[in-house]
């Protein structure tokens, strides 16, 4: 039984040797491999073969050449062409991050972990200023009364249609008494307070369905706890 266990561990070590050579094992794995290498000549020979393979692989890759400058020029031209179109959406994302004191982080990085507990009201006016906002990258400051912490109520995740104008989104929020409390999450989704009451069942479904009916403005909506 113990012989089988030892064999299995040796096989595992043999499988790990390429990553030992490239320094990609954990300290514990490295220690295990080195213990076996000290007492197993066949494994040491295997490691020599792996070193040869690794060296030749590096040479083969380095002789694979470089992409042309034209490829870079094509890419940058395409990005420049799309940059103008995307700037408004980008300024919304980066502007909101800046307002929340999270500039420099991508949405995916910014809204994880502890920050999930922080609920901040971002008024519709912010959406207006961000979407219509200055392409120079400057973003208007929130008035002090526009930001406060809230708790309780019924929440949903909403992604607004990319074609929706700032005025239309503001109108939708105002008409339905909605408040954006968090976001944008990766994919451009916002957490929105539907009601200050904790709605369930049909009442919640009815409100969600009403917003889902605004298909030109709401691309996605789903309950959020």
């Amino acid at each position, binding site marked *: 039984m113990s012989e089988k266990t030892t064999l299995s561990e040796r096989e595992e070590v*043999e*499988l*790990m040797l*390429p*990553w030992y*050579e*490239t*320094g*990609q094992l954990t300290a514990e794995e490295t220690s295990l491999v080195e213990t076996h290498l000290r007492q197993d000549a066949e494994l040491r*020979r*295997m490691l020599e*073969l*792996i070193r*040869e*393979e*690794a060296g*030749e*692989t*590096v*040479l*083969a*890759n*380095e002789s*694979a*050449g*470089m*992409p*042309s400058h034209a*490829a*870079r020029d*094509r*890419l*940058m031209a*395409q*990005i*420049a062409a*799309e*940059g103008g179109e*995307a*700037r408004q959406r*980008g*300024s919304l*994302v*980066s502007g909101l*991050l800046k307002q929340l004191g999270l500039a*420099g*982080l*991508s*949405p*995916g*990085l910014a809204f994880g972990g502890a920050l999930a507990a922080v609920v901040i009201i971002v008024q519709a006016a912010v959406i207006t200023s961000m979407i219509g906002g200055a392409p120079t*990258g400057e973003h208007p400051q929130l008035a002090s009364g526009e930001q406060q912490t809230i708790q309780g109520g019924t929440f949903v995740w909403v992604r607004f249609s990319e074609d929706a104008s700032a005025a239309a989104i503001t109108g939708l929020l105002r008409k339905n008494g909605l408040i954006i409390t968090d976001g*944008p999450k*990766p*994919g*451009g989704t916002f957490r929105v307070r539907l009601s200050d009451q904790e709605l369930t069942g049909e009442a919640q479904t009815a409100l969600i369905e009403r917003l889902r009916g605004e298909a030109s403005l709401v691309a996605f909506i789903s309950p959020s706890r």
Partner: protein
Amino acid sequence: MSGIRSDKELIAQIVARDQTAMSTLYARHHVRLYRYLVRLMRNEAVAEELMNEVFMECWRKADSFEGRSAVSTWLTTIAHNRAVSVLRKRSDAPLDEDYAVQIADDEDTPEVVSQKRDKAEIMRECMNRLSADHREIIDLVYYHDKSVAEVAEITNIPSNTVKTRMFYARKKLAGLMREAGLDRGWP
């Protein structure tokens, strides 16, 4: 003053539509991405095109990067998916194994080959005869320095499969080298 920006900081700036950050990220990663693709696709023009598609996807979907892995791993994952998609559509392209046989048939006898070329050259030639899966994993481990977990993420296979695929890729390489007249004594 601002110092060198990390890859993750560049991604955050790309989310904010910073084209200079995109240019910096490209300068940092384009050579390795291109080499990964050209060795997988065996075609420089296709590799260049796919590489640009990878960077465009990065530009368009930078906000989907969640920071759990290195940016280079994320980019290579996108490259892998695009390459696999193209390889699957290449119904007219020869299978890798067939390709290997064609090359082998065109070669001199193993004895002549071993006399004419050195061991390193033969090994590199045999690497080129491996299947796409085997070539890819050897490159990812030995050249791109990817860990087991990173290779698993890029190729979308379990970690244990990564280890065994690498083992069988090496075994196949040893077999091809033996056929070419170079017996390394393993397996």
